[in-house]
């Protein structure tokens, strides 16, 4: 049924949201990390809980070292929910709190989550985060909360939603004006803030969109492609500089 819906929406030229991450642009500045916190009411947990591995960073910049001193290189990789089309986190959820939407997103219904944490184990990208305690915003920090995003309670799993509230707002606006969402007019918080424009968000069903164009790039690949999760996120390789052309 779901599959049919997805296919149908493809035929209808509906939306299928995707992201491209250009590793050749990403500078590891982490503007996206804080943007995501600000947009999505992600709590901070404090030093003690952080040391116990309880921070919630829907967006993170992984850093890998390669080689030894002095011939060492570091590489950054922004990682967030890959919105897999064949998401391992979905079938394992006993309550459908983690499920697929018609637009190719892996949606998380916080109210329906009972906190088995199975989905987080099943997700090979480790991008699902759990509220081990009730989140706290020491007053008046709570005034910064985004009213368009629900605050999650203890025992609930959460993760990158592709800023679903922005998608919904854009769809409502587009519908009111009887048009479709223009490429580039809708940006997730991380994309909007990405200082080096390494992140691109858009509709993969539109072959002309920037994200579709990048997804077709020969530099593109999917993270952990071999697992067959069919992510909606394409990573564009960081290039190496060669003196003889092909730069």
């Amino acid at each position, binding site marked *: 049924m779901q599959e049919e819906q997805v296919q149908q929406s493809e035929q209808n030229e509906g939306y299928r949201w995707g992201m491209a991450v250009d590793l050749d642009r990403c500078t590891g500045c982490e503007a996206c990390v804080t943007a995501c916190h600000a947009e999505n009411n992600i709590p901070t947990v404090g030093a003690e809980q952080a040391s116990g591995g309880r921070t919630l960073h829907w967006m993170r910049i992984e850093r890998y070292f390669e080689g030894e001193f002095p011939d060492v290189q570091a590489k950054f990789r922004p990682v967030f929910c890959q919105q897999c089309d064949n998401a391992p986190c979905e079938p394992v959820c006993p309550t459908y709190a983690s499920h697929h939407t018609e637009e190719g997103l892996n949606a998380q219904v916080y109210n*329906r989550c*009972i906190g088995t944490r199975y989905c987080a184990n099943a997700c090979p990208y480790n991008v699902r985060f*759990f509220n081990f305690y009730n989140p706290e915003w020491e007053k008046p920090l709570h005034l910064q909360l985004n009213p368009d995003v629900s605050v999650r309670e203890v025992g609930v799993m959460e993760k990158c939603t592709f800023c679903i509230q922005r998608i919904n707002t854009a769809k409502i606006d587009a519908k009111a004006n009887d048009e479709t969402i223009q490429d580039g007019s809708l940006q997730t918080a991380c994309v909007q803030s990405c200082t080096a424009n390494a992140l691109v968000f858009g509709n993969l069903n539109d072959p002309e969109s920037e994200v579709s164009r990048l997804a077709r790039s020969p530099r593109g690949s999917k993270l952990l492609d071999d697992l067959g999760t069919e992510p909606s996120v394409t990573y564009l390789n960081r290039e190496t500089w060669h003196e003889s052309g092909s730069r």
Partner: protein
Amino acid sequence: MNPEADRRMTEDFLRPLLHTTWKFYVAVAFFGSIVLAGFATWGYQIYTGIGIAGINSPVFWGFYLVNFVFWIGISHAGTLISAILRLVNATWRRPITRCAEAITAFALMIGAMFPLIHLGRVWLFYWLLPYPSQRGLWPNFRSPLVWDFFAITTYLLSSLLFLLLPMIPDFALVRDKTTGIRSRIYGLLSFGWRGTPKHWHRLESGMHIMAIVILPIAVSVHTVVSFDFSMAVVPMWHSTIFGPYFVTGAIFSGIAALIIAMALLRRLLHLEYYLRPIHFQNMGKLLVTMSLLWGYFVFNERLTVWYGNESHETGVFWATQAGDYAPFFWTMVIVNFVVPIVLVGIRRFRTITGTVIASCGVVVGMWLERFLIIIPSLSYKQLSYMWGSYAPTWAELTIMAATFAGIALLFLLFSKFVPIISIWELKVGDQPKIETDQPLADAEAEGELA
């Protein structure tokens, strides 16, 4: 049958039901308070949040799930073993079936609590159950956790039935040997048993059907438990070997638990006469068989992973072979494989004490096995940036201690209210001739097994 033996058997087995010493109350208080501490901890966890446990990102499952798998494994002691032995008509089974079946029921009850204890929002646990709701919402039948729910409930119900059925004639016996309120209660429990041939016939065929039915249920239940892991694309979880591997491990740990329980009952209730070296010997043989089978599975699992050298799996593999988790792994190999084969497999070393020691080792080893399946895989998933580690907190340790105290408590109470050895089965079987003048302690003195 020798009426003297009959009388003595009845007396021996009803003694714990009829006479209670202060030691019993002390033991109940001791285990009971640990169990209470466990419940208090759980209550505190519900109140403050599951953060009081050591689980974290990326190790989202910890001791609670280890204990879940462990206790479900232990539960295979019973039903499976007694069902197999019943079906093959192994007469030596008679004194141990009840004990085995009780272990099953209790271990299941305890094990089945862990999926609840580990929930982030346990107050919504009923969303796991299929019930008709106004919104037409059902649980996700694709989720192994929902399979778990069905498998475990079925197993729990059927093993309770399997435990209760053969208790009926014994309840009737207690009813007849007691008076007053006690007699009336046991009368109710014995469902009007009169011991007519029709009754006996129905009981026998009921037991036979249950013994056949329970085998696939028992196999399926631990297979389904293994699916909790093998269905997820987590390194070294996603393996086809897990079903039989888990069932084998379950039976293995179940047998070990049963041997320990037998030894304890034998000593505490002075049942040396009925639980004889032959029982330990036979159970020991089963233990060694399962040890070999288990070792075979571990070897298969490890060899294929090592040889395949798949990049996602090498992190987990080496962490368990030579890294942080290696001490646990090699301890497990020693206590699950080397010790049983030496102490039980080699005839010269085979004693009751040795068998019990080996069994204790196996219980520890199988607990470690569950730990080693769950924790290292989650610690070393595909993206090494997110590698992590795990240590239990006081909360998990308290609740774990409470489960061990819980099974002791349940057994204590059980043996107080139910004859721990199936009296009628023992009577109908061909027991060795009763030497009435033989001091009971002699059985212990035999020490070495034949």
